[in-house]
C-alpha cells in the first residue's frame, strides 16, 4: 500500500463523511424550492447531527446489546461502502478488499442488523418496519446486483475500480444495456434510500413509514449515527450510479491534476443528481406498500433485461 493511495483513500473518506449530509441538505433544499417552501439551510443536517450527538440516548428497558451496537455497525458498513466505490479516484487501496458483490453484501449486513435492532424492542411499529425493510431489501438487492453485473460484464470484472476505469475509457455511446440498467438503478436507489415513491423520508405517519419505523426507538447519538449512515448510503448510491453511468472526471492512478479536478466535477454531478432526486420526489406520489414489490420486481426485470441485452447485442 503506497502513501499516495492511502491519502486518496483518506480524502475519499473525508469527502464521504462531509458529502453525505451535504447531499441530504441539498436535496431537502431543492425539494423545498420545488414545493414553494422556504428552504432550510444547506448545513442543516450537520446541525441536526450535532444536536443529536449532544442529547442523551434513551434506550428501552428490554433492549439487548444488538440494539446498542447496531448504529455503530451500520455506520461502519456505510463508511466502508463509500470507501470502496470510486468517488474521486479509481486508485483505491481498499478496492481489492471488496468488489461489486461484496458491496451489495455490505448493504445487506447493514440491513440485517438494523432490522434485527428494530425487532429487538418488541414494539408493533418496530417489527412492522423490519418486515417492510426486508421486503424492500429482498427485491432491491438482486436488482442492484443485476445492474452491477451488467457493468461487470461490459468490463469483464466485478471489481468496481476496474469497471469504472473501463467504462470511462470507452468512447461515448449510449449502450442499450446500460440504459436499461440505468432505469433499474434509479428505481432501486429510490427504494433503498427510502425515497418517495417507496417511502417518505419526511413522514411521521406511523402506518406508512419504513425507514422511520425502523429507527423509531433510537435517540441521541445512536440516532445521529444512523441518520449519518443513511446520508452516507445516499451518497454511496449516488456515487456508484455516477461512477457507472457517468464515469468521466474520476481520476486514474497517479494523476494529481485529475484528482484536483475530480472534486469539483463530483460536486457538480452530485448537485445535478440531487436536484433530479428532489424533482422525482416532488412529482411522484408515494405508493401503497403492496405496490412496492411490483415496482421493485420491475426494476429487477429491467436489470435482467439489461444483462440479456448486453449478451444479445454485445453492447
Amino acid at each position, binding site marked *: 500500500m503506497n502513501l499516495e493511495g492511502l491519502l486518496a483513500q483518506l480524502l475519499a473518506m473525508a469527502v464521504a463523511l462531509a458529502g453525505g449530509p451535504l447531499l441530504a441538505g441539498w436535496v431537502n433544499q431543492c425539494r423545498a424550492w420545488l414545493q414553494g417552501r422556504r428552504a432550510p439551510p444547506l448545513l442543516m443536517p450537520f446541525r441536526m447531527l450535532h444536536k443529536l450527538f449532544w442529547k442523551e440516548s434513551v434506550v428501552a428497558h428490554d433492549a439487548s446489546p444488538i440494539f446498542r451496537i447496531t448504529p*455503530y*455497525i451500520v455506520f*461502519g458498513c456505510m463508511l466502508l461502502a463509500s470507501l470502496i466505490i470510486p468517488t474521486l479516484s479509481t486508485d483505491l487501496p481498499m478496492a*481489492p478488499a471488496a468488489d461489486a458483490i461484496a458491496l451489495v*453484501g455490505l448493504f445487506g449486513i447493514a440491513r440485517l442488523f438494523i432490522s434485527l435492532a428494530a425487532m429487538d424492542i418488541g*414494539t408493533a411499529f418496530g417489527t412492522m418496519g423490519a*418486515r417492510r425493510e426486508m421486503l424492500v431489501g429482498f427485491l432491491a438487492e438482486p436488482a442492484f446486483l443485476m445492474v452491477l453485473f451488467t457493468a461487470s460484464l461490459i468490463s469483464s470484472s466485478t471489481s468496481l475500480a476496474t469497471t469504472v476505469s473501463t467504462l470511462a475509457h470507452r468512447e461515448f455511446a449510449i449502450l442499450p444495456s446500460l440504459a436499461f440498467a440505468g432505469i433499474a438503478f434509479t428505481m432501486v436507489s429510490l427504494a433503498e434510500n427510502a425515497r418517495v415513491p417507496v417511502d417518505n423520508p419526511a413522514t411521521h405517519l406511523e402506518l406508512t413509514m419504513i425507514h422511520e419505523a425502523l429507527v423509531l426507538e433510537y435517540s441521541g447519538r445512536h440516532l445521529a449515527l444512523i441518520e449519518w449512515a443513511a446520508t452516507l448510503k445516499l451518497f454511496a448510491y449516488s456515487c456508484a450510479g455516477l461512477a457507472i453511468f457517468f464515469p468521466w472526471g474520476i481520476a486514474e492512478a497517479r494523476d494529481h491534476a485529475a484528482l484536483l479536478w475530480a472534486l469539483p466535477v463530483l460536486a457538480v454531478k452530485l448537485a445535478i443528481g440531487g436536484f433530479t432526486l428532489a424533482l422525482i420526489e416532488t412529482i411522484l406520489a408515494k405508493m401503497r406498500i403492496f405496490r412496492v414489490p411490483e415496482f421493485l420486481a420491475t426494476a429487477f426485470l429491467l436489470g435482467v433485461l439489461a444483462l440479456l441485452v448486453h*449478451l444479445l447485442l454485445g453492447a
Partner: protein
Amino acid sequence: MDPLPELLAIDGVMLVVVAWFAVGLAGIAALHNFRLVGRVLFPLSAALSIALAGFALLALPGAPQSTVLAIGLPNLPFHLRLDALSAFFLAILGLASAGISVFAGGYFRQGEGTPPGLLCLHYHLFLASMAMVLLADDAYAFMVTWEVMALSSYFLVTTNHRIAEIRRAGFLYLLVAHVGAIAILLCFGVLQANTGDYTFANMRAQELSPFWASCAFLLALFGFGAKAGILPLHVWLPEAHPAAPSPVSALMSGVMLKTAIYGMLRVNFDLLGSPLWWWGVVALALGLATALFGVVFAAAQVDMKRLLAYSSIENIGLIVVGLGLAMIFAAYRMQSLAALALVASLYHCLNHAIFKSLLFLGTGSVLHATKERSLGKLGGLMRFMPWVAWTTLAGVIASAGLPPSNGFVSEWLLLQGFLFTGELPNPYLRMLVPVFAAGVVLVAALAGYVMVKFFGVIFLGRPREEKLAQAHDAGGLERLGLLWLTAGCVLLGLFPVAVLETIDPITVALVGRGLAASGSAGDWLLLAPVSAERASYSPILFLLVTAAVVVLAFVLVRRFYHGRVRRAAPWDCGFPLQTARMQDTAEGFGQPIRQIFEPFYRMHRELPTPFDEAPRYKVTVEDPLWAWVYLRIAAATEAASRWVGMLQRGRISIYLLYSFLTLVALLFLTQA
C-alpha cells in the same frame, strides 16, 4: 519410500470408524446410564471426530490410498479408497460432527423415547456408516453402508416414537430413502456395463455410450436427489428434520445431505468421466427450482425446525446449481471455470454443514429451555439465553450469505462462476446462464429475509409467553459444541484462500485443473480465483476496516460528546397499551412473502366473521407438490392394486386356471 506413512491416513480413518462402533456398543452396555453416555461417550466420540478430520485433511493432498476389507459375503470383499474427494467429505463429517457430538453429550436427557444407550448406538452407527459410504470403492460396499446409514438415521428420527406424527415422518423418510436407493442401485448396474464387476475402478474404466451414460446420470440424480432433497423428492425433509432430536437434525442436515452430494460428484465427475452439457442444464434448472422453492417455503414456516429444514433444501439447491454449472463448463472443456464452479459448490457444502448444524443445535437449546418449537410462542430469548443467541447469530449471518461470514464466500464464488460464461460456445446457454444467476441472487436475498425472521422472532423482542422468562441458557457441553461451530463459521469466512488451497487437489482430480494454477496462489489475504483485476475479495481487510470504524466511532463520540444512556419504557410513538402480543408473529413477518408468492403455496385461511364470540384466525401453508404429485401417485397405486386385487378370487380352481394359462403362454413364447 516408506510404505507406513502412505497407509497411515486410511488406516486412521478405519480406526476411527471402529472406535465409533465401539463407543456405540459401550452405550448398549450402559443402557440407562445418562451420566456415562452424556459425559463420557459423546465427548469421546467428538474427540474421534476431530481425529477423523485430521486424518482426512492429511490424506487430502496425497495420492489415493486403497485397501480391501475381507468382510461381507464370500468373494465380495469391501473395497475402500480414500482419495481427495472422499477426504474432503470425511473432513466435513469430522468437523461438523465434533461440534454436534459434544453438544449431544449435554443435550440428550431422560424421558425422550429411546433409552440413551440405544440412542448412542444408533448415533454412532450413523456416524460410522457415513464415513464408510465416503470410503466405499465398490457398489456393494456403498449400498450396504448407504442402507445402514438410512436405517440408523431412521431410528434416530423416530427417537420420540411414542408420538404418532413422528412415526409417520420416519416412515415417509424411510420410503423416500429406499426409492432413492433403488435408483442408485440401478445406476451402478448401468455403470458396470455388463461386466459383472461392481468395483468403482471397473466402472471408471468403462466407456458408456451417451445414451447409457445419460441413463446413469438421470438415475444418480434421482437416487441421490432423493437423499439430498431435490425437488420433487424433498417432501421427507421438512417432516423428518423437525421430528428428530436437534443434534440428529443437525447431523442429517449438515452431513448426511452432503453424502448425497458426494454421490453425485462421484458418479458424474469420477465414474462417468466427462459429463454432457445438457446434464449440467438439468442440474442447474433443478437446483435453482429447489433453491427457490426451499427459500420461499422457509419464509412461510412457523415451526423453527421446519423453517431450517426448508432452508436446507434451499442450500442443497444452491450446491446443485454449482454442480450443474461445473458440468456445463466441464462438458465444453473449460476447465478453470469448471474448477471455479466446483470449488464454489464444495465450499458451500462445507459451509452449510457448519452453519446449518449450528442453527439446528441452537434450536435444540431453545427447545429444551422452552419446550416450544412454534415461533409464535417464543421471543425475547436473547436476554435469557445469551450464549445460544450470540452463537446462533453467527450462524444466521452465515446462512443469510452476508460478509464477512463463510456463507458469503461460497455465494461469491458461485456468482463469479456465473459471470464468466461469455466464452461458452453454445449461444443459448451463454444467454440462459446469467438469467440463472439472477435466480441465485434472488434466492440469496430471500435467505436474508428468512434468517431475520428466524432470529428476530425467536431471540429478539419481548417474550410472547410468560413461561419464557424461566428459560435457561445452554449447559457447558452444549456451549462447547455451539462455540466450535461458531468458530468454524468465522474462520472459514475469514480465511477462504486456505480453504481454496485445501480444495484444490479435488478439482485437479475431477476436472483436471485447480484454481491455484490460475492466479490466486500466494496471496493468503486476497481471494481472487481468476485474477485480481477480474474480481477479488478480502474478508480480513473487510472486517478490520469495519471494526476499526466501529471502534473509532465509539471512542470519538465519547471523546467529543458523551456516553450517557437513560433506560426508559419503549417509545413506540407514545402508544400506551403495548403488549408482547402486538409484535409480529412468524405468520405476520412472513405475510409479505406469502402475498407475493401466493401461487406457490396451497393456503387455507380461516377468517373470523364480525359476529364471532371468540374470533380465531388461522392460516396453514401446505406444499402444493404433496397434493399434485404424491397424493396422485398414492391414488394411482391404490387404483392399480384394486385392479390386481380383482385377480384374487379365493377359489383354488381359479388359481389353478391362472397357473395353466401362464404355462401355456410361456410354452407359446418359448416356441416362438
